[in-house]
């Protein structure tokens, strides 16, 4: 179980304040897989790290299995399986097996426990035949599976994963999803992702962050129902506010994919039920603030033509 209660975090870099999280609240129960989504810089990693006890929040409270992540950090650590983004976070010259044994040992397993647990996990994530190959030879997919195996060493009730399928090919990521699905049955899983198809496939719950604020949460179905039906509209020159809805362009026209109740000039081509990607696009701001600023207003018209 995970409870997040008005969690806020502001970073200060050279006098500048970055409000990474602004009073975030939600709860997840056992057996739930939650997809945490949002544009780059929305605050996903910060939230995952706060729950992992790796970042201390400024305000608010968070609990893992009823234990406070700040006041009882040491206890909470025992309950967590964590997978960070960094693919570099293994020892390149050690094999997959040695790496797992290393991390099992420092998590407090005895030598024989570490050995049998490492084997078991390698088998489970499908890396057994690669166990004696140095980590530096692993593909991205294999590296991510090894990271999942590491997160499972202590058989934790709560799993936190930051972009676990980043850089994986479609088959690996499908395998990965099935693995997470089976793990999620009797655990609480919170994972970030930019892949809406993946989140739609895997998550019982979706939490959407936008510039550090929680703007929507619910099951994929609830969220899609909230946005409803999308219409495809062919139009000449869309308003710059609409650029995030552009899904196609030709010499003369733009194709926009907008919620049906939105007033847009042009010819309606067809209607389709909203996907999770539509939900994301409709609810969040266009792009993250930094790229938006550096690109400058109106620049999109140039790339569009």
């Amino acid at each position, binding site marked *: 179980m995970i409870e997040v209660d008005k969690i806020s975090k502001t970073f200060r870099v050279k006098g500048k304040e970055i409000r990474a999280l602004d009073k975030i609240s939600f709860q997840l129960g056992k057996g739930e897989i939650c997809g945490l989504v949002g544009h780059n810089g929305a605050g996903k990693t910060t939230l995952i790290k706060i729950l992992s006890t*790796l970042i201390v929040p400024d305000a608010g409270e968070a609990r893992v299995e009823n234990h406070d992540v700040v006041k009882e950090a040491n206890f909470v*650590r025992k309950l967590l399986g964590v997978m960070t983004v960094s693919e570099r*976070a293994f020892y390149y*010259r*050690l094999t997959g097996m040695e790496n797992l044994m290393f991390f099992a040992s420092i998590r*407090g397993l005895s030598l024989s426990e570490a050995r049998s647990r490492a084997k078991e996990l390698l088998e489970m994530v499908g890396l057994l035949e690669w166990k004696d190959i140095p980590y530096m030879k692993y593909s991205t997919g294999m590296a991510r599976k090894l990271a999942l195996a590491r997160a499972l060493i202590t058989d934790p009730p709560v799993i936190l994963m930051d972009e676990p399928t980043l850089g994986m090919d479609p088959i690996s990521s499908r395998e990965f999803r099935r693995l997470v699905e089976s793990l999620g049955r009797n655990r609480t899983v919170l994972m970030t992702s930019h892949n809406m198809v993946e989140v739609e496939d895997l998550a019982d719950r979706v939490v959407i962050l936008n510039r550090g604020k929680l703007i929507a949460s619910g099951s994929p179905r609830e969220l899609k129902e909230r946005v409803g039906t999308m219409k495809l509209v062919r139009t000449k020159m869309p308003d710059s506010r609409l650029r995030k809805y552009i899904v196609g362009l030709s010499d003369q026209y733009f194709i926009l994919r907008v919620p049906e109740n939105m007033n847009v000039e042009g010819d309606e081509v067809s209607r389709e039920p909203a996907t999770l990607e539509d939900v994301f696009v409709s609810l969040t701001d266009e792009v993250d603030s930094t790229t938006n600023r550096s690109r400058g207003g109106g620049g999109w018209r140039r790339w569009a033509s």
Partner: protein
Amino acid sequence: MGVLSKLYAYIYLRGFRIWSSYKTQMVLNVLSWILPVFTYYFVGTSLGGELESFGISSYTAFVVIGLAFQGYVSSTITTISQRLRNEQLYGTIEYYVLSEGGVLSFLIYSALWGFTINSVNAGVILGIGELLHVDFHVNVLSTLIVFALLLSSALGLSMISAGFTMLVKQGNPISFFFSTFTTLMSGTVFPVTVLPSWIKDISLAIPLTWALEGLRFTMLEGYGIGGVLGIVEVLLLFNAVLLPLGGWFYLYSFNRSRRKGTLSEY
């Protein structure tokens, strides 16, 4: 607890397996232990009796003890700072924070690997000393006591240095000082008595200076604990300050990084 599995992990896997996988590096390491002994051996023989006026009966013996034990401080400190820096860049540091025993365990076991490799180094140098006919008269008990105090003071300094690494990332002043100045200031290859008095005063603020003097008494002259009591007391005092201060500063640096979100490279 799993001490055995942690020794396996830190000393064998992350220490020896990785160190020995860099074959050239390993050979260079060993050469860098051995060559200075011969360099100073010839310096000593070419200067002949000159050194006796500074109260050194055998320069080779003096140098062998100095070189054998200096690494416990300088190389442990730099090894741990570099180690920590790398774990930060790789992002493995976060898994140490989550580990049983946390970052304190990380530091102690990493220092233990440093001590292990330095002991091989020290063994090799003392062995060469034997071949060069150094006249050892070792009092085992007092040697072990001074040695243990040297190690624990190195641990204290390592924690301070590691704390700096966490806080300032680049340009760690402690690590720089100890890797650059110890040979000059702590009586490794020449007695501190030849130094200008103000540098000599600084050298007295380094535990290694005292430990080397103590070890020369206990390993070359066979002094018992009574003979080096003054030195032992000074080393105890260093430890009484360095260990709590180091532990506090080291943990503070991690807590600060957790507040700033800079545990791993941001």
